[in-house]
């Protein structure tokens, strides 16, 4: 197995490669593209490395898969309201185009290496992610399980499609759980710090349909708030348990990915600790 430092170096190189590819002098001036998700690079590296892909192909696959993520993440930052100031309008316009450009690049790069099958796999993933994003955005999930499954699809549909197309089933659970837990940690933090999280808003609407049109945290009383948090944590703990199981049953996960998964579990256990303290 490759040692930790070697993998870290590879991941840093891959991140550099992606940064380089999305560089565009004019876009750079105005658009701050979302941070490249290093954890996704680690995960993709682990999957593609497991397939024993030759170096160049591995790089190209990670680069193009990350371009798709980068495109979707950039589009996620396009706001509903265009600000009136001309500079802001231009920034929003360029965000739309930057996302489109990154999508175009993924297709372009894979077509240069005649990887038509991966183009299709990623395209299927793009469709699934966006359809689920609509479900989440429209708050159409009326059951807790459906809501969490929708989040799971948004986070992992692309990687799952890859895993399926290469028939490496063991990675499905690892990828899905890792990406889902990461998102849940993020949503919980977001909710606790700012009170605003689409996941929690939807959860509130499922649990307290009367308040369907009221999305503000303050509109629920303390007891109701605690109930919402408990409902979240129940799901959250299930995912944590799955992650622990995944780590236990997959001894050959590389050191860096294992470390990231353990870091995430530590963060999650902090939540649980806080909860015990809060509940006194």
């Amino acid at each position, binding site marked *: 197995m490759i040692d930790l430092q070697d993998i870290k170096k590879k991941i840093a190189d891959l991140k550099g490669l992606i940064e380089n590819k999305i560089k565009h002098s004019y876009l750079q001036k105005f658009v701050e593209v979302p941070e490249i998700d290093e954890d996704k690079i680690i995960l993709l590296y682990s999957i593609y490395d497991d397939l024993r892909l030759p170096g160049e192909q591995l790089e190209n696959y990670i680069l193009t898969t990350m371009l798709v993520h980068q495109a979707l993440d950039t589009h996620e930052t396009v706001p509903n309201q265009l600000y009136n100031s001309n500079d802001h309008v231009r920034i929003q*316009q*360029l965000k739309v185009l930057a996302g*489109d450009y990154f999508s175009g690049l993924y297709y372009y790069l894979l*077509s240069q290496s005649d990887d038509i099958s991966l183009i299709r796999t990623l395209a299927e993933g793009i469709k699934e992610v966006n359809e689920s994003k*609509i479900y989440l955005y*429209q708050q159409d999930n009326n059951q807790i399980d459906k809501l969490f499954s929708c989040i799971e699809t948004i986070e992992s549909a692309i990687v799952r499609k890859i895993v399926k197309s290469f028939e490496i089933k063991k990675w499905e659970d690892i990828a899905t759980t890792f990406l889902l837990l990461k998102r849940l940690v993020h949503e919980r933090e977001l909710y606790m710090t700012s009170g605003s999280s689409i996941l929690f808003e939807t959860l509130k609407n499922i649990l307290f349909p009367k308040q369907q049109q009221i999305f503000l945290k303050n509109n629920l009383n303390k007891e109701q708030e605690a109930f919402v948090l408990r409902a979240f944590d129940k799901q959250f703990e299930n995912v944590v348990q799955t992650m622990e199981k995944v780590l236990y049953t997959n001894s050959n996960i590389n050191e860096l990915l294992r470390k990231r998964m353990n870091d995430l579990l530590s963060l999650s256990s902090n939540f649980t600790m806080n909860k015990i303290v809060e509940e006194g």
Partner: protein
Amino acid sequence: MKLSMMYSYLNTDLALIEKELETTIQGEHPVLKQAGLHLLQSGGKRLRPVFVLLGGKFGNYDIHVIKNVAVALELIHTASLVHDDVIDDADIRRGKPTIKAKWDNKIAMYAGDYILGSSLEIITRLENPLLHKILSNAIVEVCLGEIEQIKDKYDFDQNLRTYLRRIKRKTALLIAVSCQLGAIAADVPEETHKKLFLFGYYVGMAFQITDDILDFTGTEAQLGKPAGSDLLQGNITLPVLYAMQNKYLKEQIIQVSELTTPEEINSLITSIKQSNAIMHSEMISNRYLAKAYKVLDELPPVRARNTLSSIAKYIGKRKY
């Protein structure tokens, strides 16, 4: 003659494409279903599918193969329009509310990305590497063209070359590859599909120049937006570049900014219309059309060649 009459012999195949568009553009979510239906009902000339089919007629035409190219190209075009409406903050397109107006920006972004995903899913049913190299390059170029368009807004120092490169990327390229990819999907020889690309490119250039002329000469009812909107939004088109050769007009044109109101620009629009800028622009458009006809002469004498010629003629003469 109406445009659709020129290729009425393709109607059965176009109906098949329409049906295919209908099934692929709609996802499972009701919003996607509605948005898909809404986009299809908003119509459009389906120019790209027509060019794909006509390109295919120069080779082994198999609609079950070629339809994939036609549907994919129309979806790529549609996806870019859905996102363009977010960029332009446009509420109306072809007289109907846009996706972003009917729902909002978020839904428009998701729907646009979904449609792009659908188009790539469909085009990858064909495994011809050349086809993907050409199409992917065109998609990247179209994006770069749009980025450039924003960069060049209100830049009155730009020259003819900048304008032509922009409209090539923005419009001509997708029409050019429509003709070429239809031909490639029908296994035509390289020499022929390259000529079809050139034909599409020349026609596409003429099409966009005509569009830019009509922005001055058309009425609000014909255009679906007030005349002179391009200039008001800072897009420096061919008539503006020619008008700026007149010192008096240039002085007024370079005053146009984000702060200019439609009322303030009215008299300038009239002056540009009355100048020889429109005539000069028409001449350039006609030069592209002449090149398109010349390329057509070098193509095998199949029925599609005459149709392409009629379409080129229509584009040169269209009034809205």
